């Protein structure tokens, strides 16, 4: 399981990427998708997911629509125009970040005998 501390800076990117791939998703669906794609190694907690979703919406990167399903109200999220642009940029940045980290970590001296 990947720690929440490591995940902290990546949640916005994960959400934007998933919405970019799947069009529209609701909260529970997002947590399931992340779990599924990471083969259970990443678990999005409520505390990480919902504040991030509302912040992304306040920043204008995603939009929401509420659909009534029986007695439940389901809130679907999808990317706004700005969010679409931001998703591409963030993903590029993130890939670059991963490559940089990889390069840095590969440079570590090998102490094994």
């Amino acid at each position, binding site marked *: 399981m990947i720690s929440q501390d490591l995940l902290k800076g990546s949640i916005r990117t994960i959400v934007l990427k998933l919405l970019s791939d799947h069009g529209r998703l609701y909260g*529970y669906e997002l947590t399931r998708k992340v779990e599924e794609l990471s083969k259970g190694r990443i678990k999005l907690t409520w505390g990480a997911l*919902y504040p991030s979703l509302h912040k992304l919406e306040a920043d204008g990167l995603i939009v929401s629509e509420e659909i009534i399903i029986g007695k439940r109200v389901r809130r679907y999220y999808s990317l706004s125009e700005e969010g679409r642009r931001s998703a591409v940029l963030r993903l590029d940045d993130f890939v670059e970040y991963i490559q940089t980290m990889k390069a840095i970590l590969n440079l570590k001296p090998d102490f094994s005998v």
Partner: protein
Amino acid sequence: MKTLSDSQIDLIIKWVRSHHLTIHSLENEFVDHICCDVEGLLNEGRSFTAAFESIRQQLGDDKLVGLEKQTILKLTYNQRIMKLMTRLAGIIVLLSFFAAIVVRISGYESWKTLMAGGMLVLGLGFAPLFFFDHYRQQEVKGQKVLHIFGFLSALLVPVGAFLGLLNTQYAIFVIAAGIIFLILGFIPLSWISVSKGPARSTFAGSIIFLLFIVFLAFGFISVRLSKEKLNSWVHISNSTDLSSITLGKLNSGFILKFMNDSAAFGRASEISERSNKLVSKIEVFRDGFILKLDPAYTEGDLFFRGMDSHYAGAHLLIKGEKTDMILSEMKQYEEWLTSMISDENDKVKQKISGILKPSYSMQENDLTLQKKYLFRDFPAITDVAVLNSLILNVRMAEYQSLKFLSQGESINF
């Protein structure tokens, strides 16, 4: 695939609502998320009661409230930072003003720096942040316009006061523009808002209004103080001018004493002629400087436009080539006058040199340094006072020479 019945959903809704959350959309999301989680457990073979209990235990009693708080904190992060910065700017402004008052009462000059710093933070920091924050919160168009007027006044009045502290020529116009926005925009709109709006806007309006009174008071005080200072320089400049005119008349009368001694009369006339020539050159130079600032200036006027300009001296006198000429002629005059006195009368020589070499004698070999020393970053009226003092020095040196000549002790005279 098992799904929840309406009554089971009602139970979940009831439990979520018992937390009294304030963000309705978040409440709906929590209900839906819990329903999905419970449905997942139902499909694993658990009963509704066991599944719901398991989720409740995972979330605990305060998890949902905590999540809402976390969301609010995340959403209001920028506003909180802005509020913090506004408060910090406000504290800096108050401390600067308070320190300026204490320093002023103690009689030190640095109060102006403190006051100017406070004015700048007020005009460029506190006021924009304060009004932007309030502007953002307003939904009614009239209230938004009110805050734009407030912002403009709060920006212009302290910035004008800051310029006033630097004796800048246009300070009063900047303050006047701020006051126009205040009187014609902010106050009438505040009045409407107070009489029609809720208590909150009345309170905010009063606070803003009080703040403005403070801005205005400081603005006017600073401008008034600089005017007093300028007036004192006008007085000094005028007194120096009058003294040199009086001394010039006295020197002219002195020459009559040498009527019986033709050699001494010739020398005295020569001194007088050369002194008059130098004085008139400095006068023309001085009047030219004033006329460049105020073309409508006529001889004898005490005040002239631009007399508070800090940059006139730097632009017209320090950089001006004519200033070099005047200072060089002052030096030549001194050399000429002292060369006529024999070395035996060294004390007289030194006295005349002392009169003509003003306090810039330390840098006498460097003309640029001399100019910078004489015409530093002061208002233009002080530069005029310096030029008048040069004239007075010539007249005093002339007087000393004539007095020495009248005593008949000179060899060369």
